[in-house]
């Protein structure tokens, strides 16, 4: 038996001829997996006198931790925020498809919706491990409805809420119906009564994210002191950086973050939501906090045209997704002027120019981030794996190739084009 029977009878797989992402670099090392976890080969050799049952030749490719997407609204025609007969099936469908993008764990995201939607959908979306059936569900990300009117973005105005006077999470429990299976809540900290909410959510182990907000820097810092640790899609749906009041963006370099804690920030690196220069400013200011998210909407994976997102209708043009309306252009958004050869035509006439989630896939985001920021391949990969794991407090288990971590892996070439995806050491997708 290649395993010492007294420790385990499980078969051992050795990934050979690969470069693994470890200690922030790519190392020419083999990766050993047993029982879905990464194994320490030295202990295996000396303590168990064991060796591998089988060897998988990776052909010199890069082997990295699987990607973790903490903001995903749907895809392939499924919108998590639109109630259907079987919300669980919708999540499972998308979970399976995103394996092709290297995503091995994710947080299905619900945008601002009426309580009826939350009450129907939340109980059906459970935390579960990934596998051949699809990426693992880490918990739901509730983006709204406790957000700012001025910064609602594509969220439906009529369902926005405030906290009311009572304090604590009761208003949330009422709206959401419960906090089971919830891993993150995005809220606007300037709303009255937010402090006790942030504090209590954090104590319950729910990650609190600031977003869709007009908070100034001190309001944001206070929220961080109460326990907030994430910024939802930095730059989008918040006040722009101002040199006398940097707003939420200022958290990246704030000196009022409690010791031992870090603020992470989501970036949609699709080349559209953020100008590459702004992406670089954020990255250079606080590289360890950058978390790549897709904020992908149901149209991701679908052809161009009109689609429904939550309670709204949006329109697809190339890699752009806009809120569809029936007025001529309203306030232009600067990055509408991004000239992208993939755009079929510049979208001026028929709708608004408010951005509405993205349709880029996670692997596209990783590649685009690396090109735009000029960072190293390990840094780009960590922004999609290690950092989200650290944000959610699961980095001892996910997002890393340290011994004992889950063997959720992606195999890719030097251009970071994916070749295969593994969950718990089992191949779940191959190109």
């Amino acid at each position, binding site marked *: 038996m290649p395993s010492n029977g007294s420790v385990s009878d499980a078969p051992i797989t050795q990934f050979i001829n690969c470069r693994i992402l470890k200690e922030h670099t790519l190392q020419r090392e083999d990766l050993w997996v047993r029982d879905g976890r990464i194994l320490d080969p*030295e202990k295996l050799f000396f303590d168990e006198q064991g060796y591998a049952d089988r060897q998988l030749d990776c052909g010199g490719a890069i082997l990295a931790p699987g990607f973790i997407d903490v903001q995903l609204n749907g895809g392939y025609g499924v919108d998590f925020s639109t109630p259907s007969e079987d919300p669980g099936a919708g999540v499972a469908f998308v979970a399976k498809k995103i394996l092709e993008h290297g995503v091995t764990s994710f947080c299905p995201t619900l945008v601002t919706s009426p309580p009826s939607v939350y009450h129907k959908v939340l109980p059906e979306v459970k935390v579960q491990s990934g596998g051949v059936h699809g990426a693992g569900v880490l918990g739901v990300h509730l983006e709204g409805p406790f957000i700012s009117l001025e910064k609602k973005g594509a969220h439906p105005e009529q369902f926005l809420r405030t906290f009311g006077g009572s304090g604590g999470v009761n208003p949330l429990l009422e709206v959401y119906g419960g906090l089971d299976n919830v891993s993150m809540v995005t809220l606007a900290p300037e709303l009255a009564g937010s402090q006790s909410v942030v504090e209590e959510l954090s104590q319950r182990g729910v990650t609190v994210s600031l977003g869709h907000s007009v908070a100034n820097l001190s309001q944001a810092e206070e929220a961080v002191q109460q326990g907030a640790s994430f910024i939802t899609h930095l730059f989008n749906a918040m006040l722009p950086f101002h040199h006398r009041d940097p707003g939420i963006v200022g958290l990246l370099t704030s000196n009022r973050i409690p010791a031992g804690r870090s603020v992470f920030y989501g970036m949609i690196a699709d080349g559209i939501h953020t100008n590459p220069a702004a992406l670089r400013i954020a990255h250079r200011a606080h590289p360890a906090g950058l978390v790549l998210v897709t904020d992908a909407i149901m149209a991701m994976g679908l052809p161009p045209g009109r689609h429904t997102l939550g309670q709204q209708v949006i329109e697809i043009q190339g890699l752009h997704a806009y809120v569809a309306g029936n007025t001529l252009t309203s306030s232009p958004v600067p990055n509408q002027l991004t000239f992208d050869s993939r755009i079929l035509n510049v979208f001026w006439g028929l709708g608004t120019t408010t951005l509405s989630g993205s349709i880029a896939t996670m692997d596209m985001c990783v590649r685009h981030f690396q090109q735009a920021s000029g960072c190293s391949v390990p840094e780009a990969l960590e922004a999609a794996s290690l950092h989200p794991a650290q944000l959610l407090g699961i980095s001892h288990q996910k997002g890393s190739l340290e011994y004992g971590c889950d063997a959720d892996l992606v195999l890719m070439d030097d251009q970071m084009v994916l070749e295969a995806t593994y969950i718990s050491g089992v191949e779940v997708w191959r190109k």
Partner: protein
Amino acid sequence: MKLIILEQYDQVSEWAAKYVRNKILLFNPGPERYFTLGLPTGKPLLEQTTSYHTSSVIKRICYGDDRAVGLPRDHPESYHSFMWNNFFKYIDIRAENVHILDGNAADLPSECQAFEKKIQDAGGIELFVGGIGPDGHIAFNEPGSSLVSRTRVKTLAMDTIQANARFFDGDLSKVPTMALTVGVGTVMEAKEVMILITGGHKAFALYKAIEEGVNHMWTVSAFQQHPQTLFVCDEDATLELRVKTVKYFKGMMHVHNKLVDPLPGSLKKN
């Protein structure tokens, strides 16, 4: 004795690795016929051997011969970690074929005797590959060690402890003071001995080892009385030798280099 003189460290490693490869192939090992290799550290050899191995060449018993007493097995400076990271993880040797002295054994003298017995049971060591210290020691047989010594516990010289302090953050109190080592006598029983010596700081030891007499203050000199010894060194290590010695052996390189030529296909096993 054959003295092989090469220009630099990398060439020494490469020459030695090819020599070992050829020796193993000529030995024609198999599941019932193991090639037994004795290795105290020997970093130069290991680096090159890993690039020369084919999957079947090195599946052999491997004797790690010196072990610091009291160092936990998974300490990054332990011999186990060193051998794993520099050698074992690159080759497909089975753990049951690796024998390393255990510095954490409860009864150290018994551990040493058991080790000697394992060597005997394996039919003796075919090839022992080692380096020497600046004080001319082989394995941990420091100056004054008996030339007929066997595997035993040795107290380390202050020099050695200080030299090793760099692996323990410069803290002398953390450096092990004792080690288990194969004896000079043990190594003398190997069928062949290969010593790798690189660097000017070893030059005086090399001089004492081969140009002066057999002396227990320079324990490597014992191999003058071994029938099959091979010293492989770089130019810097020859700095204390007589010009005559160096010229003599360089003059034989064209013959000695034949030992590392690739073997004809018929002799190669896959």
